[in-house]
């Protein structure tokens, strides 16, 4: 059975004003994610990406109320039948703003909190902390205050605090928005390693098409409360007009490929290395001569 199974999920938030209408967000989501798969989720602002993330650990609908229809299964558990703490140990969610989930004095205590609340024995917790902090390359910061770290470091501690619960699934909701490029690279590096080395299933909400293209197994595009597109990065990013129509970006090299294509040749690029290999060999194949300005 896939690690994540979502069947015909419909969800509406409670009305914003008394006597108002429920706010329909998810309108029939069907999705399966296999163990060890890294799936990126894209969608316009306000389409319900965060709502979908919260449905995976049961916060939607348990803490939110509203109208919920359909089924969500994480590691085989139906979210209707299990409380949020149990679900959170199967599907850990990391949010945009790591600081909003910190409340301990040291990095170590922050990472210990999850497993402690699961009732894990103390000796095992120590081992989990050691492991989780080493995975995110933050071992030497274990006695520091989480509030005094850089943005990228904070987000890595947030990831470690989820990892320490040993979930089979990590859900990351725009984990790098607001981070500078260096912080972004730190966080994506950790996510990539998690998938490669630890076989963790990752659902990543992200807008930066270039990064998605580099390391996703699959891309899912949400529009209007439904899954509008699903496929490999190259299947998704070759549909430039459709992506732009939904309001989303494609990698710069994909646009370049389209712009360079003509009657005699077609370029379909998703990743940097593809574009480099193809364009450099095309340049070499031209009749011999020297490039403009050398």
């Amino acid at each position, binding site marked *: 059975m896939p690690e994540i199974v979502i069947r015909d999920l419909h969800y509406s938030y409670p009305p914003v004003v008394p006597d108002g209408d429920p706010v329909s967000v998810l309108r029939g989501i069907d999705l399966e994610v296999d163990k060890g798969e890294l799936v990126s989720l894209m969608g316009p602002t306000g389409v319900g990406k965060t709502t979908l993330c919260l449905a995976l650990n049961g916060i939607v609908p348990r803490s939110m109320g509203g109208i919920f229809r359909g089924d969500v299964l994480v590691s085989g558990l139906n979210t209707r039948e299990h409380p949020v703490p149990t679900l959170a140990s199967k599907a850990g969610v990391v949010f945009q703003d790591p600081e909003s989930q910190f409340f301990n004095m040291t990095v170590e205590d922050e990472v210990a909190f999850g497993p402690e609340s699961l009732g894990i024995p103390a000796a095992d917790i120590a081992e989990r902390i050691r492991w989780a902090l080493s995975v995110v390359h933050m071992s030497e910061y274990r006695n520091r205050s989480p509030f005094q770290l850089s943005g990228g470091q904070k987000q890595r501690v947030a990831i470690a605090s989820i990892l320490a619960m040993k979930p089979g699934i990590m859900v990351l909701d725009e984990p790098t928005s607001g981070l500078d490029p260096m912080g972004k690279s730190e966080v994506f590096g950790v996510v990539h390693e998690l998938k490669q080395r630890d076989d963790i299933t990752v659902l990543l909400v992200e807008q930066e098409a270039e990064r998605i293209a580099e390391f996703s197994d699959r891309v899912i595009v949400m529009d209007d409360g439904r899954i509008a597109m699903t496929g490999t990065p190259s299947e998704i990013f070759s549909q430039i007009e459709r992506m732009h129509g939904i309001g989303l970006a494609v990698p710069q090299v994909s646009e370049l490929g389209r712009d*360079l294509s003509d009657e005699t040749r077609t370029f379909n690029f998703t990743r*940097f290395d593809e574009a480099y290999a193809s364009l450099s060999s095309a*340049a070499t194949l031209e009749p011999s001569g020297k490039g403009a300005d050398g």
Partner: protein
Amino acid sequence: MASDTIIQVRNLWYRYRDDIVALKGVDLDIGAGDFVAVIGQNGSGKTTLVKHFNGLLQPASGQVLVGGHDTRKVGVGALARTIGFVFQNPDHQIFCATTREEVAFGPRNLGLAGEELDGRVEEALHRFGLVELADSPPAVLGFGMRRKISVASVYAMRPRVFVLDEPTTGLDWRNSMSLMDTVRSMHEDGHTIILVTHDMKLVCEFAQRSLVLRDGGILAYDDTREIFKRSEILKETGIEPPQIAELSKRMMSYGMPDDVLTVDEFRAAYVGIGRSLR
């Protein structure tokens, strides 16, 4: 001061609390009508610097002149006529019951009333595509719209200079492009634009000049094209150039230039080397 300089910063120092030095002797001239991107790591001093332009922060030592006026001698209210400031989170500056009232708030505070006020508000609503939403409460609109309203409400004050602090964070591609197209048209109308951002695609697409901050000081201040040519500067500040700029540099041995900033420029250069080969 030279007639074409709108912001002058002289040996500006600033400390948070007593111990953290956020700006270390910054000297800077921004020309009237320029489009300047302010880039650098988190904590490099970007937001601290621009908050001096509208008087939200006052120098520990040194001087900031805006339109020739010392920010220590004129109030935030008076500076607001010259400098419009769009904050990172639109919800920190949106609080009125309708979009129209929200957009009218700034100019009304500047003392405008009657037809002049109405004219400005209508023009701003029009420019930002908000006419049909004029009577809607901003709170129920989507994040992208609330962001546009926050920029429109600053625009209605007709400041000579716009400071935009990470205006596209949280926006999808369509909303980002639509906002930046409007910013570009404001620039074409003669407004000075100061854009704080981590998005190097935006910097390369829109900003003529780039100011690179590191550790509270200026590492480089030059035409964006010159800055992105200099790999060592980018490396030193952890800035990753857009994919397309990197690709062109990697292909220099095939005749591609080292200063490509956009997809269009890459295409033109690549077609160019193809032609020269025939």
